């Protein structure tokens, strides 16, 4: 692959995109391993892929619809019981913007 070589900064950026709070040591290790794997993946550069249709899934299913009728639903209390924090029938999370109330 003729892309620029992956840097540790790139790995740190990818870790952030993936929402993984990694330590600098973990970034360093991941960098070396990703480089090794990507190097191996250059083997497909030898293939002529012009005009080849991408294959996203094996079985040609499209627009799978069901009848518009109310079916079985998950029980809300049972679902919320599994949440790390819930309040008033909803999931509770730390502040998203600004200070906690």
């Amino acid at each position, binding site marked *: 692959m003729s892309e620029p070589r992956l840097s540790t900064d790139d790995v740190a950026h990818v870790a952030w995109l993936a929402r993984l709070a990694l330590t600098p040591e973990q970034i360093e290790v991941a960098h070396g391993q990703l480089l090794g794997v990507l190097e*191996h993946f250059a083997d*497909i550069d030898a293939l002529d*892929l012009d005009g080849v249709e991408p294959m996203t899934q094996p079985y040609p299913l499209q627009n799978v619809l069901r009848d518009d009728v109310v079916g079985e639903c998950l029980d809300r209390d049972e679902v919320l019981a599994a949440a790390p924090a819930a309040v008033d029938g909803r999931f509770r999370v730390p502040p998203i913007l600004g200070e906690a109330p």
Partner: protein
Amino acid sequence: MTARTIAGDVRAGRRSARDVVEEHLARIAEREPELHAFNLVLADEARAAADEIDRRVRAGDDPGPLAGVPVALKDNLCTRGIPTTCSSRILEGWRPPYTATVVERIAAAGGVAIGKTNLDEFAMGSSTENSAFGPTRNPLDPSRVPGGSSGGSAAAVAAGFAPLALGSDTGGSIRQPAALCGVVGVKPTYGAVSRYGLVAFASSLDQIGPFAADVADAALLYDLIAGHDPKDSTSIPGAARAVTPALGQGVAGLRVGMVREMREGIDADVLARVDAAAAALEHAGASVEEVSVPAATYGLTAYYLIAPAEASSNLSRYDGVRYGLRVDAADTTQMMAATRAAGFGEEVRRRIMLGTYALSAGYYDAYYGKALKVRRLIARDFDAAYQRVDLLLSATSPSTAFAFGAKTANPLAMYLSDVCTIPSNLAGHPAMSVPFGVGDDGLPVGVQLLAPTLEEATMFRAAAALEEAMR
């Protein structure tokens, strides 16, 4: 004892399901501390289910074709109210609010869930060493790995903890551990078996399938779980074609292709068993020729771009909000990043990063987009091969069971364990591993049979012939 014998005895009232369950629990009590095939043994639940089956038999009911048969379930199959961990800290203690369709079908047929089996975290791995709860050991040689990612299910069947087990196969995770543990393992056609309730890894590749000690038991379980499910929108419409009736049909006239590209990098003692399997099929009346699936050579690369890309998307749901682990932090974004860093193990983090990178702006076309085109080439090359032959034959795994730690330091070495199994997942085709003798170290070798879409019956015919040849 086979599942068929157990079910026959229980249905006829010759033996109680409770007795069957106690016998298997006793075997588990004896060897499980050493092997660690299970994340959770469902002793009380299994006893209660067995008692209910016995009550029905006494009342004159037929509990079904799996009456009283213990079945081990890979711990990425959801079981309502029963912890389902995917061998990950991030889901430790989670109790799903619903049950996988395959698990419901097994219960409806009289099968008894005996435990949730260990796996590589989120089914990412080929040795079960990536489990957050410690590795599973190979029952045939506890100094070796059982393969993976469904290593616990393969080990459970090989150790006699259950005659049947379910696993999932995204790149070889049923077939490779089946080969390393000397049991039968089947990856059905993509969409042939409902995946409702299977925790997603790579959605265009994942498929649930059976493990069994012999081919007919694997066929019995396949026939029970195959078929359309309205709860899985990728499940193939219509009824599945049963494979059990095909078992006795023999292989006379069947054309079998030896895949040239799947001989590279395979140990000589394993290749010798593949050649012996070809000879056995020929002896039983099939014709064997060498065929080429040129793009299969690039399967590993395509797979390790596509599967991590899909995984990075699927695993974004573990964010500390709705279920599982939460590591508290000042705001939600930091909470998510801290939770995910603490909850995911090293290999899962590595694949999420690889997938995120392959999908990220500026790299999508060079990596993910290209991999999807290679995937098309592989499917086309398979189609061309199937113009000439009915089935393909290869090794399942490049080697017999390897030692603990042998491949953990080098991810690529571990990935190469799946070089023969990955192409079927990319194409969506069925494939299975059948034990066929042993390697130089005396450990089992599995040979792989590959078939075109929904040709499971042909594949099982050949599997039965290979089993017959080994008798």
